[in-house]
């Protein structure tokens, strides 16, 4: 197929659409089909494939249907954002208050970065139809006492895995989509694995080509909804993400609105979804983050002890679909994730070991100055990535600046001479960051795992 000039005038212009429609959803033979449409345009069909296809469990039919419906509503964010039309229509009728509120919040805050980047204001634009009758409060489904642990290939989920392994908890490492990196990490955990496939509607690529709005979506929310369906389908009583404390902090404020790159990893969403699952799906299905009380630094400290993962994990946000043996095949060395993980591991690992993980010394490379400045919130705002708070980065940088083996590296030297004099050393201690906070919703069964981390 050769590339020809696309004639845009005769086909849909996504940005001019009027209605986004949730058409229908279904599940059969291990495949969930989620169907959407703009205006009266062609249907956009997303497919989610659950391996070793169990049939929908008859005894939990209402729980399964509720979870599937929520998945349909949440996964729609990938398509809705292509046109952000003024009206949202749900074919099965208006939603109950709690459901509509969850979705309004998710679409507004989860797309806040998208809106900021595209110069849009979504406030007042997102309104799911509400007024439907709330279903009766869900009962316990008698789910088996085992946990779905999503694996992302980065350090956080591996810390969560090891915490659950440490208390002898039964768990399965689960991930959505194709990623050789995640597969390698999942295999290294030694846990049973579950790989769910998500196929975006191919028409979405066409919409992008036709000039659709594009940008960041709250993908953790979509994955959470997929795992809620999986929990009912395969039988798990808990889904434990590895979202840490700083995920709740806003990246910036823009015209009065908080913009948080990782809103769906934050505590607000965890509470909304956790409560909703209890009332609408099953009272014994827990959704939580095992790392919620901990700072990034506390988690990197825990991860620094997990040597067997050093040559397989990566937190880099460049999607390496082809894995190679070299550090550069897993760490681009240029993105905020690379910068942050490098910096945060620094205080907890011998320098040669840290450098062997990344294959280079990012803190001795003047070209990375702007990237580290952004982490420190020096002359810039926090980057749009899942990285720690500025004060946390400053504490890690300060700790390294006090170590003789780091002091002369270009960016540490710069920190000492240029940035440190402007900071209050009393605010730079590492230790306070290692203390857990109280905020968490970890179920009783997994509380001992929580304690192994700090």
């Amino acid at each position, binding site marked *: 197929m050769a590339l020809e000039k696309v004639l845009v005038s005769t086909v849909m212009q996504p940005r001019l659409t009027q209605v986004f429609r949730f058409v229908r959803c279904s599940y059969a033979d291990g495949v969930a089909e989620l169907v959407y449409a703009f205006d009266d345009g062609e249907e956009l069909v997303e497919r989610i494939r659950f391996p070793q296809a169990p049939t929908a469990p008859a005894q939990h039919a209402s729980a399964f249907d509720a979870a599937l419906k929520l998945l349909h509503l949440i996964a729609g964010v990938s398509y809705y954002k292509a046109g952000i039309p003024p009206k949202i229509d749900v074919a099965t009728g208006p939603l109950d208050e709690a459901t509509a509120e969850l979705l309004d919040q998710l679409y507004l805050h989860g797309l806040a970065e998208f809106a900021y980047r595209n110069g849009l204001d979504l406030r007042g634009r997102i309104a799911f139809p509400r007024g439907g009758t709330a279903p009766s409060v869900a009962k316990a489904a008698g789910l088996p006492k085992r946990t779905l642990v999503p694996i992302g290939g980065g350090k956080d989920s591996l810390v969560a895995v090891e915490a659950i392994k440490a208390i002898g908890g039964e768990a399965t490492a689960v991930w959505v989509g194709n990623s050789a990196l995640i597969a390698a990490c999942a295999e290294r955990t030694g846990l049973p694995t579950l790989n769910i496939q998500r196929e975006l509607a191919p028409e979405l690529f066409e919409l992008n080509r036709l000039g659709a709005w594009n940008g960041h979506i709250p993908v953790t929310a979509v994955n959470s909804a997929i795992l809620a369906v999986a929990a009912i389908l395969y039988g798990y009583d808990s889904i434990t993400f590895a979202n840490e404390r700083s995920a709740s902090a806003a990246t910036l404020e823009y015209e009065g609105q908080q913009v948080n790159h990782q809103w769906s990893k934050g505590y607000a969403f965890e509470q909304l979804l956790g409560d909703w699952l209890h009332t609408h799906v099953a009272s014994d299905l827990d959704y939580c983050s095992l790392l919620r009380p901990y700072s990034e630094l506390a988690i990197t400290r825990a991860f620094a002890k997990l040597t067997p993962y050093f040559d397989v994990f990566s937190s880099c946000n460049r999607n390496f679909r082809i894995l190679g043996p070299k*550090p550069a095949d897993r760490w681009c060395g240029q993105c905020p994730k690379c910068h942050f993980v490098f910096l945060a591991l620094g205080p907890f690992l011998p320098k040669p070991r840290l450098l062997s993980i990344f*294959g280079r010394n990012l803190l001795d490379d003047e070209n990375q100055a702007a990237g580290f400045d952004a982490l420190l919130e020096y002359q810039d705002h926090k980057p749009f990535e899942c990285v720690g708070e500025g004060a946390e980065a400053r504490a890690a940088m300060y700790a390294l600046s006090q170590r003789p083996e780091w002091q002369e590296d270009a960016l540490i030297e710069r920190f000492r001479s240029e940035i440190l004099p402007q900071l209050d050393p009393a605010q730079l201690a590492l230790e306070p960051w290692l203390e857990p906070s109280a905020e968490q919703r970890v179920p009783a069964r997994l509380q001992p795992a929580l304690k192994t981390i700090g």
Partner: protein
Amino acid sequence: MPVTPPNSVPLPADAPWIVMKFGGTSVATLPRWQNIRELVASRRAEGARVLVVVSALTGITDALKQVCGEGDQDKRKAAAGAIAQRHYDLLEHMQLALPDTLGARLTDLAQLAAQGAVVHGELAWTAKVQAHGELMSSALGAAFLSHSGLPTQWLDARECLAAVALPNQNERTRLLSAMVEAKPDPALNAQLATLGEVFITQGFIARESEGRTVLLGRGGSDTSAAYFGALLKATRVEIWTDVAGMFTANPRQVPGARLLQRLDYEEAQEIASTGAKVLHPRCLSPLREPRVPLLIKDTNRPELDGTVIGPEVRAHAPSVKAISARKGITLVSMESVGMWQQVGFLADVFAQFKRHGLSVDLIGSAETNVTVSLDPTENLLDSDAIAALASDLAKVCRVKVIAPCAAITLVGRGMRSLLHTLSGVLAEFGQLRVHLISQSSNNLNLTFVVDEEVVDSLLPHLHDLLIAAGALRTDDSALFGPSWQTLYGSGDMVDAPAAWWRESQREHLLKLAVEATPRYVYHLPTVRQQARELKTLAAVDRLHYAVKANTHPAILRALAEEGFGFECVSPGELKAVSAVVPEAAPLLFTPNFAPREDYARALDTRATVSLDALYPLEHWGELFRGREIVLRVDLGRGLGHHEKVRTGGSGSKFGLPVELIDAFLRLADAHGVIVRGLHAHLGSGILDDAHWGEVYGQLASLAERIGSVSFIDIGGGLGVPSHPGEARLDVAALDRVLREVKAAYPHYQLWMEPGRYLVADAGVLLARVTQQKGKGAFRYLGIDTGMNSLIRPALYEAWHEIVNLTRLDEPATALYQVVGPICESGDVLGTDRRLPEAQEGDVILIAQAGAYGKVMSSHYNLRDEADEIVIE
């Protein structure tokens, strides 16, 4: 089993000795032993006494180590039983009964395993246990060889090799890494001569003054063979292994590495110490004084010459012999004015390294700085040794810890006399962060310590540069053998067919040259053949010919017929192409720092336009409104030859740095410009297929952030080998790499822009001999055109094959500098070329002139330009 006829004539008492050493895999199976038997018999047939030195069966030494580490007696006994079983199995294959010699060894081992360390003491017991691997394999070998018609005496190595106690040894090193002083011993020689003609003994073991068994440590079997070679003053020591010898580089990193056929002891030891694994460096020193040569041979390919290591090789031009890399190196740089003329400063500093258990390797120093390197160890990685060292050093100087680094070492005798040939190599290092350069007084090496991340792609490139610069004289066939790829590469390697000009068109070319010279001749069948080869790349959706390589209308037409698109970099090229190719042929416009009006003109054609800077959108955004464009990015470091532009891509004027992509996209959005394609260009002359996969994968991962992208353009730069024997680009392997990436990113089309690959081999430059001149040792061969027609040798130090077409079949006895008539000292087309003695008027052909030849030619000196002839 073939049996060599018995040697009717017994050997004289003073018959020479050959020592042959076989490693663990070579002694582990019956077919391998049959092979050994043939080799030994052939040496005996040369009229030599043969001493065979063997390692333990493969895996047995490790199994014995496990016995030593096992605390539980039953488990030790079981392990010893399993070890015995391995030997019984092999005996059964050989259809041999258990020989008494082996039976005694197995009994000993069972007893040692049952006893544990208590009787002999931990270290002595360990040595005794581990010595059994070789004792058993040699006993088994003696039985097999004798049984198969080659009477073989079993010799206990401990009776011959006496370990010496050295002052720096402790009990552990005395017993487990012992040293032997081996001097020629005529008495032993005479005694053995009375015992027989073929002997077998053990590698790895010796005996110390108290009579205890000791081990020789790492590389022990090779070292044993060397000791025996020295004791017996052998004709040679042969190390039989799984590769034909030492290579000019690690073949895993540089498949084009060449076999080193001759080395002197010092060079070989240096190469072995800096990376080559085939030989342990310590096994050469016993041979140096008695001047016993060592030969490395491939057990599976005995017909290959192998590497001969002997006394200094004379009568050869100095040459770099090898390039190696050691990774995982940590540097400690210490800076202080305190060290200047301070007695004892360095002693204090080095005492700290000793205190923290860190061993120093390379040292570089200036008046106020000392930088040292530490070799990689697990201790270094996981302990706080570096932090503690830095803390202590920080009290007396400023410390900087630089890691991870790699040491790249060039090895060759007389390195300093080669420096002038290394300018290209040094320029390459000039683009990198070089942390340390070291050259010791033995003048054998030159080491550069650089960032580890650049090494994998740098090494093959440096190897090529060394050859191109004439520093690694692969043209000297006495020193350099075939490439590793030729010897061991995947079976796909086919000999390149003879060039078109060498056979089928030779007479035609001679006639054309008689009509007029200088003259370019293009062979269209070769262009088509190259085009069709690239069309086999199933992963590639569209190929564009980069017309800058050669804009001859016949070539453009031929490639249009083959379905190629055309990549142009100027309005002139667009015009030339449009005048020749059909309307339907796709066009790309990929300029660099072009003026606004160039874009305006290109946008009026059907060409797809590339941008590689923010400027055009910042300043001429309206020009591009509503257009679809291609964004050319500079992937910067981490990629192939771009590694060298480490300073944020500032070394290259091409491409938008990755960190500016977001800014570009915002500008594009503001002007309604749609980024349809993402493009990066690797560089040129790339022969390693893996690089393409890397660029493609990285571009695709970037493209995922940009919704509008529908194709990835990985540019051109497909390498064309110029030196004889160099491997061609493996198109099938490239296709596999590309398909693998495509499978991960099926939603993007893949485009390429080959240029030189299509046309280089299709063109030659014909010239005629004008004059000759002798000047000192140099002989100059003048021809009637030079850099005015072909500037690549002067501009890029490019190497073009040059032949005397008039005398193609005559022996190449003269060594010429081939020069043109231009008044520039750089007007040299080829240096040190072996050619037949030439005469005025002879036709000289310069090959691979189809790309960047005519298009880069000039009227300099107001000489007439070469004309162009096309062979359909």
